[in-house]
C-alpha cells in the first residue's frame, strides 16, 4: 500500500513538473526583450554570478558554518553579454 501510494505520489509530482516545464517553455517563448532594450540587464549588478570568486569564498564560509548548502546559482541573466 505504501509502495502504491508512493508511486502515485511520484507520478503526480512528475506530471506537475512536466506541466510546469511546458508552461515555462511556452511562457518564456512568448517573452522577448530585444537586444537594444538590454542596456540595464547588462549592468554588472543585474548579472547573476558576476560576483565571481568572492561569492565562492562566501559560499565556502557559510557551508562550513551552517547545516545546509546548495542551489548557489549559475552565471548569466538574460543580457546576452556573457
Amino acid at each position, binding site marked *: 500500500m505504501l509502495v502504491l501510494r508512493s508511486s502515485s505520489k511520484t507520478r503526480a509530482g512528475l506530471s506537475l513538473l512536466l506541466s510546469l516545464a511546458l508552461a515555462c517553455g511556452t511562457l518564456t517563448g512568448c517573452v522577448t*526583450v530585444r537586444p537594444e532594450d538590454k542596456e540595464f*540587464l547588462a*549592468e554588472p549588478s543585474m548579472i547573476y554570478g558576476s560576483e*565571481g*570568486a*568572492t561569492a565562492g569564498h562566501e559560499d565556502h564560509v557559510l557551508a562550513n558554518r551552517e547545516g545546509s548548502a546548495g542551489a*548557489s546559482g549559475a552565471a548569466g541573466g*538574460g543580457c*546576452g553579454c556573457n
Partner: protein
Amino acid sequence: MQLRTFGIALTFLLTALSVSGGGARADGVVSTTNTIFEEYGGPLHMSVITPGVDARADMGDHVNIAAGYEADIVSGASVAIVDAPSSAPDAISGATSLRDTRHVAHAHLTLRDETTSLRAGYVYGTEHDYRSQAFDLTARTELYERNTILEVSYARGFDSVCDISHPRDQDVVEHRRLPSSEGCFVDGSDRVARDVSLQSFQGAWSQAWTSLFSTQLVLSTQIIDGFQSNPYRAVWLGRSAAQENHPEVRARYAAALNLRFWIKPLRGALQASVRGYRDTWDIRSVTAELAYDQSIAAGLRLRVRGRWYTQTAAAFFSDDYSRMPRGQYFTGDRELSAMRTLTLGARLAWSVPTNDEGEVLGFLDSMDLVAKGDYLTFTFDGFHYGSAAIPNRHAIVGTFGLEAVF
C-alpha cells in the same frame, strides 16, 4: 604531493597567461581573491585566511582554459569532548587548539559557440587529514534571443578522511576520537583513510522578463555517502565519551529563486533571493536575502545587504546524549542543531578608469577592485557545552579581490 599539485596548477596557469599575452586572438584574465574569516567570543575562536589566484584565457573563439589555486589557513580552538563533565563552571575550559592548511588547485576547459557552452574541470584538495578530488561538467545554452538561459551541471567527488584505526568488532560507542593528524596517510601507522563519495546535480533557469527585471530558479541535489563525522570530536554519552557517529548517507535538496530588478531613476539594482532546503538527516532550512546595488560614481558601485537564515536540528541531534539519547547516532556538531544566522554586509566595487588609449596602467584592458565586509551573528537555542552557551557566536568576514584583463 601538495607541492607537485601546486606546481602543475602554476605551470598550467603560466602557460595560459603566456598564450594569452602572445596570441593575437587571445584574451587573458588574472584575478586574486583573498578572504579573512574571524569568529570570536570567549575561549573558542577560529581564524581562516583564504588567499586565492585564478587565471583564464581564450584560445581563439571557441576554447577557454582556466586554472587556479586557493588555500585555507586555519587556526583556532575547539572543544574536543562535547558535554564532558567538568569541575569548572565553564565546560569550555578544556578547549584544544587546532592548526592546518588546505591547498586546492583546479583546472577547467570550456568549449563554446555562439549560444552554447560545455565546461569540464578537475579540482584537487589536500591537507594533513583530508584529501579530495572532483570532476565537474556543466552544459549551458541561451534560447529565445538570449532571454532564457538553461544550465545543468554534475560533479563527482572522491574524498578521503583520516581516522583512527578502530578494531573491526568494536562498537561505535567505544570508538576513540582521533587525537591528532600525525601519521595520517602514512603507511604503517595506526591511521586509516575513510572514503566519502559525493555526487552533485544542479539545474538553473535564468530568464529576462522585461528590460528591467529578471529571475533565476536553481534546483540542486547532492548525495554524500561515506564517513561524515569529525574524527577529532567526541561526545559524552553518560559513562564515557565516544567519537561522534553520523549516518553514512545524506541526500540534500535545495531550491532557490533569485530576482533582480533595475530601478531606473536611482540607477541601482534591487536583488532578492529565497532558498528552501531539506535533507535526509531531517534538517530543513530557509534563507532569505535582500540587497541593493547602487552606482555611486563612474565605475564605482556600493552593495549593501541583509541575509537571514534559519534551520531545524538533525533528527539524531541531542543537546545531552546522556539524558536524551537519539538511537545509534550522536553528534557534537553545533551546525546540526537548530540555529539562525543574521548577516549584514557591504561591498564596494571599482572599475579603474582607462586612459585615452583605453588602457589601465599602460598595459591592461581593464582592472576591477572589490572590497567586501560582512558581520555574522549566530543563534543556537538548543546547543550547549555542558550547561554553557556557545561563546563564539559572532564572526566577521573580509574579502579583497582584484581582476586584471589583458
